């Protein structure tokens, strides 16, 4: 029986954790299997949760979030027969499958769309916890925006310095208001369930927003320009499907692997013009082909544009 461990935002954060949850649910629906899951209540429980599941003989154990990195190193060594999957950070151990995504690539695409949809030439970015991973989103986004409109302004805010930043919709809403006041008319939220507040405020104030991780277009139909989807669900689904025979190692999934992308569905069809779509698809092809290189913030902790 496989197991899923969600990070502090909770499995219904409509974003990162929920993507993982959706993958697990899809596996359950398709195979009729069962799995165990736990939502963390505090940082201190990470290790306990992993050990509890490993003790109970669950296999594989999938965890969503970079913050598990530090404890997984320890725990994995104690349970060599259990396979672990960690998303968003690199952990090297023989029984660990570590998956990272090229979020900068997906963010680049939605950045282009933001720039094209913006009338004011000012777009916003609201990140969750201020860590290199989120700066990677921001940097990719900014590059996409500038690629379309070099004169555009990208306002960037982070919500906090601790995991609480992933779960503060009020703060997200207030930051969105602040950015709107500064002229932003498209805001990209990469902040877990904090982003729900951003999208809500954007809808209330009549501007466009961009969702993250899961497809969030449905939250405010006609008011969410698109979502930068990160296919955590596929990672979970694949891990569950592979079961104990899971291939371990380190994997980076990008546009080429459909690990990241932008969402297009009936909720935002009216917002995405054909021209927009063409430009973005071209860029996607360019990136896959290596003609366009999107700088990865985490490679050197700097961003060429901002």
């Amino acid at each position: 029986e496989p197991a899923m461990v969600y990070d502090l935002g909770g499995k219904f954060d409509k974003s990162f954790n929920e993507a993982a949850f959706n993958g697990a649910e899809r596996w359950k629906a398709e195979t009729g299997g069962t799995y165990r899951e736990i939502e963390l209540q505090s940082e201190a429980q990470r290790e306990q949760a992993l050990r509890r599941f490993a003790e109970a003989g669950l296999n594989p154990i999938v965890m969503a979030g970079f913050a598990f990195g530090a404890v997984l190193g320890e725990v994995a060594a104690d349970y060599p027969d259990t396979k672990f999957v960690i998303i968003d950070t690199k952990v090297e151990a023989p029984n660990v499958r570590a998956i990272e995504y090229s979020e900068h690539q997906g963010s680049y695409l939605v950045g282009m769309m933001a720039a094209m949809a913006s009338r004011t030439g000012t777009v916003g970015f609201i990140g969750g916890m201020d860590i290199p991973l989120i700066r990677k989103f921001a940097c990719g986004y900014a590059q996409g925006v500038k690629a379309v409109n070099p004169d555009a302004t990208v306002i960037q805010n982070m919500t906090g310095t601790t995991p609480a930043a992933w779960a503060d919709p009020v703060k997200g809403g207030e930051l969105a208001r602040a950015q709107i006041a500064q002229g932003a008319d498209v805001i990209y939220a990469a902040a877990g369930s904090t982003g729900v507040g951003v999208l809500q405020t954007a809808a209330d104030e009549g501007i466009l927003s961009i969702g993250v991780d899961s497809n969030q277009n449905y939250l405010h139909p006609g008011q969410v320009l698109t979502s930068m989807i990160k296919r955590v669900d596929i990672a979970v689904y694949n891990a569950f499907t592979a079961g104990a025979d899971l291939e371990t190692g380190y994997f980076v999934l990008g546009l080429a692997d459909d690990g990241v992308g932008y969402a297009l569905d009936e909720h935002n069809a009216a917002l995405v013009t054909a021209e927009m779509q063409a430009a973005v698809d071209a860029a996607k092809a360019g990136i896959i082909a290596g003609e366009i290189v999107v700088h990865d913030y985490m490679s050197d902790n700097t961003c060429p544009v901002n």
Partner: protein
Amino acid sequence: MRDVMPRWADVVLIPLISLVLAFLLSAVVIVAIGEDPLAAVRMMVTGALGSTYAWGYTLYYATNFIFTGLAVAVAFHARLFNIGGEGQATLGGLGVALVCLALPWPHWVLALPAAVLAAALFGAAWAAIPAWLQAKRGSHIVITTIMFNFIGAAVLNYMLVNVMRPQGSMDPATERFPPGTHLPTLHDLLALVGIPFSKAAPANIAFLIALAACLLVWLLIWRTRLGYEIRAYGHSEPAAIYAGIRPVRVVMLTMLVSGALAGLMAVNTVMGEAERLVLNSVEGAGFIGIAVALMGRSHPFGVLLAAILFGFLYQGGAELALWTDIPRELIVVIQALVILFTGALDNMVRMPLERLFLALRKRRT
């Protein structure tokens, strides 16, 4: 004139009835969310007591609650309501982490006393300002300790994010403590006497420190002059002043001891279990200390029993959350009900009982 009730009724009967009421109400909640309370209890018992692994967790949590429960109890004796165990334990954690990371400790035997000292000092320091404000300025210690919980959280947050987070890490946590600081677990300790015990459970030598703390607190309160003065002050401040007991001194010392005890909890969590400092490693244990002290009638032995009960609830509750649809917050509900019935609604049980005993006595005479 005599007491209306015999002592055993006050010490045993009332808490017991209160506890039963709290549990009955909890059962109602479980039924209301469509679960079977009996099955839940069974699962909690196996999950918390059914294996050495389970015991290891139960005792690990109980260790925390012994420390915070003693902290609240000691303050209660001076009629001080230290609601700041959370903050004091947080700072205790900071102290432990600083000590563990400061030196390349060769062996835990050396690191442990230093960490114990640091945890106690940091915890006491965090209680000192509210204590001083209470003693000198009469600011209500409940409010100041609440404020210091928040300030403590901010301090830890700042330290972990801006100072102690290792280079390149995204996680607001310190790096792992060096192996020389790793404490022996119950597995290691019991192995010495040949008893097999789960290796994965986090209960560690801090449990023994907690037991020692119970004994020391008992000695302090009932066998030393300071304890005598603390109790006297708690019963009557004017009488204490008459007797030459200085309120400032008693309030300060009591709160320092209380804060130190709360801080010691970090030896268990930060040094014994996590082996690094993370945000919110206290996980509400400071507040559970209130319930533990109330239930244990502020007596170290009562605190020990109540702490084990809460350790059981905590671990059992975690198991429930894991294997059923009952969320972990059910434990918070139970905890709230225990505090409500043993603390705030004490008279609800006491008044009818007193009437009963009064009537019984009248009948006898």
